[in-house]
């Protein structure tokens, strides 16, 4: 509940930034800037500080391809303890997501804010350690057993999935962007440990009984301008010819 509130308040903060940033710069010639934007996920970074069951970091990057399309990628590493009433496991691994973002936002003049939707292909390699478990016994006449320590590591696990992305990015200072995105993950294929299952997948997050998962990130990123092009509208028109 606390974290939900955090999300909501940061949501409002971002929108206020979006409004504020629209008054910052004004150049006489209107050319779109193209370049590489690199960032870090603050959500994963801060969670590593307050959640003793989580450690993770994610770097993001996107490269502007055309007026509205951006090639986008995330790379990260995570360690997550899953503590359930009957089970205790630790997942460790890395992930890579590649895809694109489409900016649906019509910017004023020189502004470069984004309200984007996008797609990613996600891939993760990881291991899962079964730390301990309890036997579920609906008829515990001889007593309910305690947690049984196992400490068995299952290596070489993999998962592939698709993410649909919805998010915003706002330029808060020159070349500095703050943004967040929500993700709905659709599992394509995962390799489960034999006699066990993936409880958490780095990048994909917690697994459910069905093929869907959810994700979130909150990024601060820096834009490295590389070159400029005429406003995409005219550029697009030229292409059509």
């Amino acid at each position, binding site marked *: 509940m606390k974290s939900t509130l955090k999300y909501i308040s940061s949501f409002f903060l971002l929108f206020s930034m979006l409004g504020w940033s629209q008054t910052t710069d004004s150049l006489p010639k209107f050319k779109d800037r193209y370049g590489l934007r690199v960032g870090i996920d603050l959500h994963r970074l801060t969670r590593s500080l307050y959640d003793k069951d989580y450690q993770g970091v994610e770097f993001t990057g996107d490269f502007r391809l055309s007026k509205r399309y951006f090639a986008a990628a995330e790379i990260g590493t995570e360690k997550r303890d*899953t503590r*359930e*009433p*009957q*089970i205790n496991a630790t997942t460790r691994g890395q992930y890579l997501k590649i895809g694109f973002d489409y900016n*649906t936002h019509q910017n004023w003049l020189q502004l470069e804010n984004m*309200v984007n*939707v996008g797609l990613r292909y996600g891939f993760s390699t990881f291991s899962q350690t079964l730390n301990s*478990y*309890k*036997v*579920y*016994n*609906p*008829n*515990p*006449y*001889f*007593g309910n*057993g305690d947690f*049984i320590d196992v400490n068995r590591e299952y290596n070489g696990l993999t998962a592939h999935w698709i993410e*649909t992305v*919805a998010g915003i990015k706002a330029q808060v200072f020159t070349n500095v962007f703050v943004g967040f995105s*929500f*993700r*709905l993950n659709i599992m394509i294929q995962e390799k489960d440990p034999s*006699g*066990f*299952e993936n*409880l958490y997948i780095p990048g994909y997050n917690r697994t*459910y*009984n*069905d093929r*869907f998962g*959810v994700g979130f990130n909150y990024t601060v990123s820096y834009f490295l301008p590389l070159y400029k092009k005429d406003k995409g509208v005219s550029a697009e028109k030229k292409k059509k010819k």
Partner: protein
Amino acid sequence: MKKLLLFCIVVLSFSSCEKDDICDPGQSTTPRLLIEFYDTNNPAVLKNLTNLYVIGEGQEEALVLNESIPIDSPVSEQRFLSNGNRIGLPLNTEADQVVYNLTLNYNSPNQDLIFEDQIVINYSRLNAYVSRACGYKTTYKLNPPTNPLAPITVTSGNVWINSIEILQSDIETENEIHVKIYF
């Protein structure tokens, strides 16, 4: 509009995905040993017990055999008595042997009609993963005939149980009867 829709999907998936956090009672987990009672004189016919009372060796409370009677009922002691032809005995998830005392006509005023037999059940155990919410379950395998510790034997009393027949030595679900007892 498209974004709003996607946002709704995300929110919905957050709220609806918590359903697998509680172990579903319909899920097949640790099974009991299911026993059906048959008539010695007519081995194909089920025979109803009369006030069977079952207590595990070393246990302070008897096994609840009739859960239809509420615990606060004036006749709550009836919970421990079976008059049907089928019972389920929990095995011990942490030991390879259980000992049960089975008493027929338990609450009879006539001492001569109270019959008490003790049975010993020997088995091996295996723990298997069920789900995130349920954790693991224990399944059992009754000892094979080659094992010096017989799977099920009447060790004392021997006053009412005539014979025991094992139908299924793999105790993995409660979907089938594992043992027949003739009396």
